């Protein structure tokens, strides 16, 4: 993986010189950067869930939020265990930073909402967020991951996040009634 990562890093450097915009491309991230994005994305959803537990009084929202915390924590534990086994560390990158900046804004916005308004916003964001991340994982990350074990973990993760997407869709239906 190290050799391929180095090649990828060289590729990024070359494209940086040729066209700066292409360096900001999710498809150009190496395995350890992809792992970082996934870890950050998991933690962002856990953060949203804690906000929901603090603000919402809807039992269905609470149940969903607890599932998000439980499942994303389980995935992150597997990811950390795999990185540990590979003797590698996730690498911060532009996409992790962008996700965090967007999440900060959204948490600020949602923290100002109460009651049904919050529930609706939270459920809709969970659906939109899982759709966006699943698209990224399925169509950009998985085809570009070099390490077989990392790829397998992402495939298992995608399975979980697709189930969450379906669950979020149900939640949106419930809170919109």
């Amino acid at each position, binding site marked *: 993986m190290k050799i391929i990562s180095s090649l990828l890093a060289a590729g990024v450097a070359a494209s940086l010189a040729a066209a700066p915009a292409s360096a900001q491309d999710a498809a150009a991230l190496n395995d350890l950067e992809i792992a970082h994005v996934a870890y950050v994305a998991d933690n962002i959803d856990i953060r949203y869930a804690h906000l929901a537990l603090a603000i919402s009084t809807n039992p269905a929202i609470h149940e969903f939020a*607890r599932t998000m915390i439980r*499942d994303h924590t*389980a995935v992150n534990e597997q990811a950390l265990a795999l990185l540990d086994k590979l003797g590698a560390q996730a690498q911060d990158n532009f996409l992790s930073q962008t996700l965090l900046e967007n999440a900060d804004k959204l948490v600020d916005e949602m923290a100002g909402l109460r009651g049904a308004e919050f529930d609706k916003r939270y459920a809709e964001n969970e659906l939109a967020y899982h759709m966006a991340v699943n698209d990224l994982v399925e169509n950009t990350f998985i085809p570009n991951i070099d390490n077989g074990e990392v790829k397998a973990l992402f495939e298992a993760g995608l399975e*979980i996040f697709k*189930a969450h997407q379906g*669950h979020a869709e149900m939640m949106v239906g419930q809170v919109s009634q």
Partner: protein
Amino acid sequence: MLAGGVAAFAAALSGRAAFSHNGIDHSKEGAAHHTVTIERFKFVPAAIEAKPGDTVTWTNADIAPHTATAADASWDTGTIRKGEAKSITVSAGMAPDYFCRFHPAMKGTIGVHA
């Protein structure tokens, strides 16, 4: 896991080889042991037929924790983490429909026949 282990141990002790067919171990006289694997957010098999006194064991092959919980909440395995297994004993008149409390789209049934 305990019930499954006990059943297998009992079969070994009695000197009678347990045999498995379609996930069912007839490890002792009359009572059968059914196994359900939880994989890719599905109960496999989703529908089983059992008799009172049989045991059902769910093994979780997913990263995400799951449960097998009666639709009317009358029975519940509790949380089954990755690689863990939990069992229940089938009783007459028990609620047949179950789901995962954490992922309600996951559903299964235990048809109980005396």
